[in-house]
C-alpha cells in the first residue's frame, strides 16, 4: 500500500544505526552519559504553552440563558466536581449523554474490525502509550482525577464540563498526579482558577476549548496532526478559509456536529467518501464531511474545468487538492521521533536542545532526555494514498514481523480499484520506538510516576518497559529493542481558499505529487514506454524520410537540368 522505495533505503541505514546505538544504549543505561558544562535545569517543560488565553469570539446571540444570573452558579466553588454538580442540577441528562462519548470513555469498539481502540489502550508513535501513564496523559481526559485504574467512570461528578464550555480562557487543566522530579516542575506557578467566574461564563465551545487538547496532541503544539495546532485559534483566511477569524470564523462544532454529546468526524472510522452529500434542509447534519455542506459536485458545472474537477470527486478527497500543505500557520509538526537517543544526561540531569525555530519564532526541542530526538516540518506536502476510511491498528496484542520494515501503528485500507477509496492526504509520522523483542509486540512504557521505575526519572528503558507491561498484565519477554513505526493522520483542516488549491500540474505531471501511487493510468503522469518509442520512430522516421526525399529531389533535379541542357 505504501511504496517503500526511498524509505527502504532510509530504514536500512536507520537499522544499521539502530544496531550500533543499541550496542551502547542497551548495556550502559544512557544516564551515565556524563557531559561537562553547566546545563540549566529543565524548568520549562510545559508542553502546552498558551500565551494567548483570550477566548475566540463565539457569541451567536442564540443562547436563551445568561449563566451569570443562575443562583447555583454564584458559588463559592472549591473544585471542578463542585461546578459539575451545579451544571448537572439543571442539565440533568448531560451527564448520561456525555458518558457515552469517547472524550469520557477513551474507548472505541470498532464496528467493522472488532478492534478495541481508544486512547485507553492504544499504542501510539509519540509518547507511545497513555495506558498506565494516566496521571500525565489524562489531563486531556474530560474528567477530574483519572490517574490510575481506580478512576470511577460511573460518577457523573467526575465529568469536566468546563474544559469544553469555559468561555473566559481562565480555565486550565494540570496532570492528575505529580510525576518524577524531572517533570514535577511542570505546571507550576499558574494562577488559581477563578471557579465562580468560569462557572458563570460557560457557552458553546470555541476553537481554543477543543484546541486545548487537540492542538497539542502528541505532546506539544502541532506535534501530532500537522493540520491542527495553535495557529488555528485565530487563523488567517489563507491558513483556514473556514476558521478564518476575520471571516467565517467557524468553531470546531460548526462541522463536527453534535448530538447528545457525540461528535461527527471519527478518526477511528473515517468516512472517506460521503456519497450522500447534502440532505434536505434540516436533514443532513450527522457527518463532518466536506460534501455535507458543499455537495458531491462542488465545482461549477457551467465551465469545463469545473465539470472536470467534479469528475475527480469520486477518486480524490476534497482535502487532497484544497489543503496544499500542512503545518503552514507558523507552527511546526513533528515528522521524526527517535526514542533511541533518549536518556542522555548532563551532570546527572535531563536536558533539552532547542535547535529548530519555527516560522512564528518559537524554538522547538530537537532533543529531550525524556523523549529522544525529533525532527520537524512546516509547509509540508502530505503523504498521499488510497483510503477507504478503514484504519487498521497495531495494538498491544498485535504480533508483527520487525524484519518486514516499519510497523504501521495505524495503517489503513484502500486501493484504486475497490470503488470506495479516494486519494487522501496524510501526515505520516516516522518514529523509532521500543518493542518487545521476544514477543514481537509493541510495549507499554511506564513513563510517568513518582517512583523509581518511571522512565521520566530514571531514564531506564528496561525497567520502564518491564513495569509498564507488568502493571497492565501484558506478557513481556524481558527483552526490548527498537522498531521503526509509522502513524498516519488523515488531513482535513487548514483548508486553503479555493484560489490556493492545487493546480492540475501538481499531480498530472511526470514528477507530480502522486508519483508513488501505482496500478492505474493517470494522464500527464503515465505513458506507454513502447508506444512512445514506436511513436518517436514513426514521427522521426517520417521526418528523416521526407528530408532525404527532398534532398534527393534537389540533387536529381540539378542533374536532370544538366542533362536536359546538354
Amino acid at each position, binding site marked *: 500500500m505504501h511504496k517503500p522505495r526511498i524509505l527502504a533505503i532510509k530504514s536500512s541505514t536507520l537499522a544499521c544505526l539502530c544496531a550500533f546505538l543499541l550496542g551502547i544504549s542497551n548495556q550502559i543505561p544512557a544516564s551515565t552519559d556524563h557531559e561537562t558544562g553547566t546545563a540549566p535545569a529543565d524548568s520549562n517543560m510545559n508542553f502546552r504553552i498558551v500565551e494567548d488565553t483570550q477566548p475566540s469570539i463565539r457569541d451567536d446571540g442564540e443562547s436563551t440563558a445568561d449563566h451569570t444570573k443562575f443562583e447555583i452558579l454564584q458559588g463559592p466553588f472549591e473544585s471542578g466536581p463542585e461546578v459539575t454538580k451545579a451544571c448537572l442540577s439543571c442539565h440533568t441528562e448531560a451527564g448520561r449523554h456525555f458518558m457515552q462519548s469517547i472524550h469520557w470513555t477513551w474507548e472505541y469498539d470498532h464496528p467493522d474490525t472488532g478492534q478495541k481502540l481508544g486512547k485507553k489502550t492504544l499504542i501510539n508513535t509519540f509518547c507511545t502509550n497513555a495506558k498506565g501513564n494516566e496521571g500525565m496523559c489524562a489531563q486531556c481526559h474530560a474528567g477530574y482525577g483519572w490517574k490510575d485504574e481506580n478512576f470511577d467512570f460511573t460518577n457523573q461528578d467526575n465529568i469536566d464540563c468546563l474544559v469544553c464550555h469555559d468561555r473566559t480562557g481562565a480555565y486550565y487543566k494540570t496532570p492528575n498526579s505529580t510525576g518524577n522530579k524531572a517533570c514535577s516542575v511542570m505546571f507550576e506557578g499558574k494562577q488559581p482558577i477563578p471557579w465562580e467566574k468560569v462557572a458563570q461564563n460557560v457557552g458553546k465551545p470555541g476553537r481554543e476549548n477543543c484546541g486545548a487538547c487537540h492542538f497539542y496532541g502528541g505532546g506539544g503544539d502541532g506535534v501530532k496532526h500537522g493540520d491542527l495546532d495553535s495557529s488555528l485559534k485565530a487563523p488567517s483566511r489563507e491558513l483556514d478559509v473556514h476558521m478564518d477569524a476575520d471571516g467565517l470564523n467557524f468553531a470546531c462544532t460548526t462541522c463536527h456536529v453534535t448530538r447528545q454529546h457525540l461528535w461527527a468526524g471519527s478518526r477511528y472510522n473515517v468516512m472517506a467518501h460521503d456519497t450522500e452529500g447534502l440532505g434536505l434542509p434540516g436533514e443532513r447534519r450527522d457527518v463532518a464531511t466536506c460534501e455535507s455542506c458543499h455537495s458531491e459536485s462542488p465545482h461549477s458545472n457551467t465551465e*469545463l*474545468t469545473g*465539470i*472536470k474537477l*467534479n*469528475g475527480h470527486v*469520486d*477518486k480524490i478527497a476534497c482535502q487532497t487538492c484544497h489543503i496544499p500543505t500542512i503545518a503552514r500557520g507558523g507552527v511546526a509538526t513533528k515528522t521524526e521521533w527517535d526514542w533511541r537517543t533518549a536518556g542522555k544526561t548532563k551532570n546527572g540531569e535531563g536536558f533539552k536542545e532547542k535547535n529548530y525555530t519555527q516560522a512564528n519564532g518559537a524554538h522547538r526541542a530537537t532533543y529531550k532526555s525524556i523523549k529522544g530526538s525529533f525532527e520537524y516540518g512546516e509547509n509540508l506536502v502530505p503523504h498521499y494514498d488510497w483510503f477507504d476510511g478503514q484504519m487498521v491498528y497495531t495494538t498491544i496484542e498485535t504480533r508483527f514481523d520487525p524484519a518486514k520494515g516499519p510497523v504501521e501503528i495505524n495503517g489503513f485500507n484502500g486501493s*484504486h*480499484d475497490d*470503488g470506495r477509496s479516494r486519494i487522501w492526504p496524510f501526515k505520516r509520522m516516522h518514529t523509532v520506538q521500543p518493542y518487545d523483542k521476544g514477543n514481537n509486540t509493541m510495549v507499554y512504557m511506564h513513563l510517568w510516576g513518582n517512583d523509581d521505575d518511571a522512565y521520566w526519572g530514571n531514564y531506564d528503558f528496561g525497567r520502564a518497559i518491564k513495569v509498564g507491561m507488568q502493571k497492565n498484565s501484558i506478557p513481556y519477554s524481558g527483552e526490548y529493542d527498537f522498531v521503526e513505526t509509522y502513524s498516519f493522520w488523515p488531513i482535513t483542516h487548514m483548508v486553503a481558499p479555493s484560489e490556493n488549491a492545487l*493546480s*492540475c*500540474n501538481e499531480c*498530472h*505531471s*511526470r514528477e507530480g505529487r502522486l508519483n508513488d501511487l501505482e*496500478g*492505474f*493510468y493517470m*494522464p*500527464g*503522469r*503515465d*505513458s*506507454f514506454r513502447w*508506444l*512512445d518509442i*514506436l*511513436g518517436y520512430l*514513426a*514521427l522521426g*522516421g*517520417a*521526418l528523416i*524520410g*521526407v528530408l532525404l*526525399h*527532398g534532398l*534527393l*529531389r534537389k540533387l*536529381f*533535379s540539378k542533374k*536532370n537540368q544538366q542533362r*536536359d541542357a546538354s
Partner: protein
Amino acid sequence: MNTQVNNGNGTKVRQKGEKHYVMIYSRYERFWHWSQAMLIFVLFYTGLGLHGLHNLLNFQLAVTIHTYAALVLIVLWIFTTFWNFTTGQWRQYLFKEGVMKVIRFYAYGILKGEPHPYKKGLQRKQNALQSLAYMSFMLLIGPALWASGMIYLIYDLWSGYAWSSQGLTLIAFVHTAAAYLMGTFVIIHVYMTTTGKTPTHYIKTMITGYDNVELTEAEKAYIEETHAISMKD
C-alpha cells in the same frame, strides 16, 4: 484531362482534353481543410503537452484547449460528412487503380523528372495514393482518435465501473497511438504538398481553390452552360 474509356475490345484509349483553370476545391472544402489543419495542430501540440512531452502549457489550460478544439473538430466533421455525402464528393476517396504507379513515381520517377502518372480531373482530384491515404485518414486514424477521444472525454460517466481502470489505460493507449499516426500522416502530407510543379503549387491551390486541369468537352460545355463551377479562362 486524360480520361480512360473502354472502347469495347478491352484496350483503353486516351481522350485528350483542354486544360483550364477551374475551381477544384470549393470554398467549403478549403474551409474544412484549413480549419481542420489548424485544429489538428492545436490538438497535437496540446496533446503532446498532456502526454508529458513538453511543459509549455499548464495542464489545466492544455486540457481546456484540447477539449474545446476536439469539440469543434467533431462539429466540423459532422458538417463535412454531411457535405461529402450531399455533394457526392465522397466518391473522390474511393479506391482507384494505379497505386503502384504512383508509388513508383514518388520513389523513382519524380527524381528522374518524369511526369506524374496521374492527371487531375474535375472528378478525379486525388491520385490513387492520395485517395488511399485520405481514406485511411478518414476511416482509421481519424475515427480511432475521435472515438477514443470522446470516450476519454466522458470518462467521468464510466469511471464508476469496475473495469474503468483498465478501460482508461486502453483508451489512453489507442488515443496516443492514433495521435502518433496522425502526426506521421501530417509530416508526410505536408511534405507531399511540395512535390507539385513548384514547391508551393499545391498549397496555393488549396488556398485559392483553382488548379489547371484538363476538361473533357462535355465538362467544359457543362461549366460554360451552367456556371456551376467557376472557371478563370
